[in-house]
């Protein structure tokens, strides 16, 4: 392993000028390598061990899960099927999936045109609009939740369902608009101009030229929105609490723990089943994801 370090070109170049003390120099580098990688391994344990313990407990027998044992005495894979057969669990899966998929599609379709206008059109009030978008993005959802709930419950009679969470996403989401705008700014104006010269209308320019070029940004925003919906707890708690048939996985998981108060093994199996989809999606879409997170940073 040390050879890899020493073979790196920059090391080779740098060690040449101070030619003499090579032996001491090399020892210093090796010690540095060891120090850095020990810290990294220790930290990796901090990040990974929780998953390991959760998994190991999820296959323990009922009695063992109540003890302090770390390693399962027997591997009870049936815990997972028990979880799946818990009444309601599959329904929560379906609801989570519906919320996340519809929410993502609605958000992307409504936010792309807005972000495009904010990024590429020049008009009076653009700066004000941008400040309003950022303000809504920053404000806690609890600030407006009470009148919102009253409207959905009393005027539309939609409490007990996830629709009060999904419908607003068809009207633009501040965070997605912000991220998409940051991304669309990087698309050169010339492409848009030349599309117009070729006789494309604004909307066709957006669909045919801008959207294909903005795919990485759109993918990142879609992923974020999917995860946001999948992870959302506050929303379903407000609107779906009174109707278990509308619960999502994130929301149902808590009641699952309460119902199986002592069965840590089943709770851990359910926990892993809630985590699994996001981790799987991440491995398939790693690049878009990291791109998106970097996008949140300063790129304006």
């Amino acid at each position, binding site marked *: 392993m040390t050879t*890899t*370090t020493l073979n*790196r070109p920059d090391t080779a170049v740098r060690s040449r000028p101070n030619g003499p003390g090579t032996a001491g120099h090399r020892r210093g580098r090796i010690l540095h390598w060891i120090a850095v990688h020990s810290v*990294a391994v220790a*930290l*990796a344990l901090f*990040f*990974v*061990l*929780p998953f390991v*313990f*959760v998994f190991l407990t999820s296959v323990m027998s009922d009695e063992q899960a109540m003890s*302090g044992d770390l390693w399962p005495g027997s591997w009870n894979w049936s815990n997972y099927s028990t979880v799946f057969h818990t009444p309601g669990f599959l329904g929560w899966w379906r609801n989570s999936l519906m919320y996340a998929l519809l929410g993502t599609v609605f958000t992307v379709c*409504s*936010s792309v*045109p*807005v972000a495009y*206008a904010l990024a590429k*059109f*020049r008009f009076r009030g*653009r*700066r004000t609009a*941008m400040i309003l978008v*950022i303000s809504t993005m*920053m404000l*806690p*959802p*609890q*600030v*407006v939740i*009470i*009148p919102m*709930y*009253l*409207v959905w419950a009393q005027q539309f009679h939609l409490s007990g369902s996830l629709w009060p969470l999904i419908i607003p996403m068809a*009207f*633009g989401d501040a965070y997605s*608009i912000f991220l998409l705008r940051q991304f669309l700014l990087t698309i050169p104006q010339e492409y848009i101009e030349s599309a117009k010269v070729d006789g*494309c*209308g*604004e*909307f066709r320019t957006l669909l045919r030229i801008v959207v294909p070029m903005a795919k990485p940004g759109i993918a990142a925003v879609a992923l974020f929105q999917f995860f946001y919906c999948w992870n959302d*707890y506050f929303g379903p*708690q407000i609107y779906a609490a009174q109707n278990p048939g509308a619960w999502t*996985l*994130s929301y149902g998981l*808590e*009641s699952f723990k*309460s119902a199986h108060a002592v069965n*840590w093994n089943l*709770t*851990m199996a359910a926990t892993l089943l*809630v985590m699994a989809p*996001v981790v799987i999606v*991440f491995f398939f879409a790693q690049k878009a994801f990291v791109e998106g*997170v*970097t996008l949140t*940073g*300063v*790129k304006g």
Partner: protein
Amino acid sequence: MALSLSTPAKSAGRATDPAPRDSPLRRKRNRERLRNLGFLSPWIVGFSVFFGYPLVATVYFSFMHYNQIKAPTFVGLRNWRYVLEQMPLFGPALWNTLWLVVVMVALRVVFGLGIGLLITKIKTGVGLFRTAFYIPYLAPPVAATVAFVFLLNPSTGPVNEMLSWIGLHGPNWFNDPNWSKPSLVLLSLWGIGDLMVIFMASLLDVPKEQYEAADLDGAGAWAKFRYVTWPAITPIVLFAVVTGVVQTMQYYTQALVAGKLASGVSIGPGTVIQPGYPDHSTLTVPQLVYSLGFQNFNTGAACVLSLVLFAIAMAVTLLLMRKSVGLIPAED
């Protein structure tokens, strides 16, 4: 969208039109105005209906007595007095939220920066380490919290079990009012992935030549960090601090779930319990809004508290605007 679709037809018409009353310039401007409105319309509707209206309604309800059954009645400043002067839980909730804002944000930024720096130094297996450090960030908050309540379970949890191997008696974590907030901080440090990626990207953007120049001047590791790295990443650190503050002001799910589960009361969601177990030590302002509005049906008081939260969040947002980390387009 229908508006914007009609634009091409219009422009085709203009080419053949022998320019009537309107000058072409004015028509172009009108068309552009329609186009802008068309593209912005989803957000204009969304902003007014899902933000503007409820904000006004929150102010309205803050002066009303309303239990969500009988019609609201005007009570003047009574709700405001009640929340700010009498409500016993307001103090603890505000204190907990501020505590979390200060401690959690500071530790997350320091830890995230440390991890970012470490990643840039790793030579072997960097991809593997990066993924390992990043994955916990993806865990849904509820699932991560359930996992941590299990891991930090005082009697049978793996963490205290391992501490006992080396002769340490672990604390009661989520069950001890003094340890419950630090436990939440630990949970938030586990999910450091977002900050790690942002810091990593900005650290890699620091020009290599500057480090080489510092090397030639014989600068040590600290001097290099202080005079080369730090000035280059200050905007990102500021960005991380402000977004961290904004997020922590909304801190809700983890605190609520941890408190509920650690209390061990066998309850389904929606069951009324005193929030913030143990001893209100995990009660945050957003939780109190929920509890007032949806458990006690004291709409007026809940709206007052919402507005207090709004004021604090707005102040922080304005600070961000002032420091403008390149978020806002320059005036044009």
